[in-house]
């Protein structure tokens, strides 16, 4: 659907976007995540043919999109929802009908179907400027789907929505995407939103794609410290592999020996990475078969989404995510003595350049 290589865009501000290669297949939901200012919107706008790359190739639906003198037919084969997806000062119906009218079509049934799909049929006579944030989002998505595009580009589709509205729209959006069979490119800072929708993920930081692949792979096996930082790996310790026996490495880090499953060789300098949800906290020393088990002191306990994040001092600092029941059950509070354990398979080593 989209093949992109060597794409370069430079701006007066000095910011450069350089994407070596990116491929989005038909029917695939591809999320590009990254922090603010990483170049996500620039990349999406390039795919929407709204800016002009300085170099590179961009193939959309089998056609060379950068060479095409007239970009209108390609633009009309897709739909893009930008980060501020303005609605016109007109009824919801006319707003959703706009892409059809731009193509010289009048198809009230298609408009009604799109409104129905996003569950806003009852709002069609309302002026779009009077809608709530969530309703506006639905109208914007209905407007994008009304032409049944083969490719849909979404820039921060869940920005500025509260959790409940976001969940409900994300659920509907997933259904609509699956039934439409459209390829979707989604750029967002919202990792949870990306995870619920995406088949494939790319992490963009500072104008470069640092890693792309299956979401689970990226979240549990980040390829670099930057990616690990961004995807919520809370414990990142510099260390050195002391020994590797059949891919079971002992790593010297933070003055302790930690076990991790990895193909790194003895003597390698590495970052030892661990996600907070992979750490178990208990009051007794029985690690239940987990190869890493340390006596620890609770440094702090703080709410973290629906769970709590517990900072532990085991000689090195370890972050653990625990449920409220566990915090209450174990009486976790600063100063409490506990045991922290995790599996060698949960840990991940990233080679470190010295």
């Amino acid at each position: 659907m989209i093949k992109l290589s060597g794409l370069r865009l430079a701006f007066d501000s000095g910011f450069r976007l350089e994407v070596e290669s990116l491929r989005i297949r038909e029917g695939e939901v591809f999320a590009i995540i990254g922090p603010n200012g990483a170049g996500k919107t620039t990349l999406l706008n390039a795919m929407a043919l709204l800016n002009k790359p300085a170099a590179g190739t961009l193939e959309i639906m089998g056609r060379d999109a950068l060479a095409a003198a007239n970009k209108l037919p390609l633009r009309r084969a897709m739909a893009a929802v930008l980060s501020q997806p303005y609605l016109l000062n007109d009824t919801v119906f006319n707003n959703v009908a706009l892409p059809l009218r731009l193509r010289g079509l009048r198809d009230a049934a298609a408009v009604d179907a799109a409104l129905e799909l996003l569950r806003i049929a009852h709002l069609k006579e309302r002026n779009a400027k009077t809608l709530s944030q969530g309703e506006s989002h639905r109208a914007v998505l209905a407007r994008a789907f009304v032409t049944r595009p083969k490719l849909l580009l979404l820039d921060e589709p869940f920005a500025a929505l509260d959790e409940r509205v976001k969940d409900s729209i994300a659920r509907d959006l997933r259904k609509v995407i699956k039934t439409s069979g459209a390829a979707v490119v989604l750029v967002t800072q919202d990792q949870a939103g990306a995870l619920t929708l995406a088949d494939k993920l790319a992490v963009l930081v500072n104008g470069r794609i640092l890693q792309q692949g299956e979401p689970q792979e990226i979240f549990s096996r980040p390829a670099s410290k930057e990616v690990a930082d961004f995807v919520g790996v809370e414990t990142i310790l510099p260390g050195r592999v002391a020994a590797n026996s059949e891919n079971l490495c002992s790593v010297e880090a933070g003055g302790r020996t930690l076990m991790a499953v990895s193909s790194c060789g003895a003597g390698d300098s590495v970052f030892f990475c661990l996600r907070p949800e992979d750490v178990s906290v208990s009051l007794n020393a029985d690690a239940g078969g987990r190869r890493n088990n340390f006596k620890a002191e609770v440094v702090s306990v703080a709410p973290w989404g629906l769970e709590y994040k517990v900072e532990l001092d085991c000689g090195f600092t370890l972050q653990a995510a625990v449920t409220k029941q566990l915090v209450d059950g174990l009486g976790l509070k600063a100063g409490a003595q506990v045991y922290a354990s995790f599996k060698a398979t949960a840990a991940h080593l990233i080679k470190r350049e010295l």
Partner: protein
Amino acid sequence: MEFILQGFQKALHLILSGNPEIFAIARLSLMVSLAATAFAVLAGVPLGSWIAVKKFPLKKLLIALVNTGMGLPPVVAGLVVMLFLARSGPLGFLNWLYTPKGMIIAQFIIALPIITALSISAMQNVDPKFYNQILALGASDRQAVWICLKEIRLTIVAAVIAGFGRLVAEVGAVMIVGGNIRHQTRMLTTATVMETQMGNFDMAIAIGLVLLALGFIVNLALTVIQQNKVLTR
């Protein structure tokens, strides 16, 4: 003080009795200024939109020139048009000097920079992201500009009001190009000047009142168009 009151009384009598000369002059004034405004809108709104959205060298200089044109003295516009339309001028063969057509051209030149400049600033106030979003929905450049214009119609109508207001009140250009010829090119403003100079204050006041009324009626109509579909919050 007496003569002012008498002037008003006689003026009201002239208007209410339907003085044919006053109404003929009013008709011509309305026709000339509306036509000049219409042509200026047809040329100035697309021109202003084009200048606003396109990137080209010396764009700022061009905008500065257009902005300067907003203050173009009507007598200068009238003089230039007269020189072009004069028998020995480059457009002398048209025989448009001292005709309503000539006056429309002069007033068009006065209104064009006003409507162009206000269209430029209205269009430049449109968020580029809005323009991009419309393109992203499959609009051609022309469709996108049209949709933006519809979104900023309040400001565009304000530009039309400003342009028409300037023209209907303008005296210098139509005096030079039209010549204030009775039954042919006499406008409400030129007639007011003439009647005042001749001491016919009742006629001058009557014409002045008609001029005010005309301005009010046209602006009322434009305002109704403008305020239609405005969302009340």
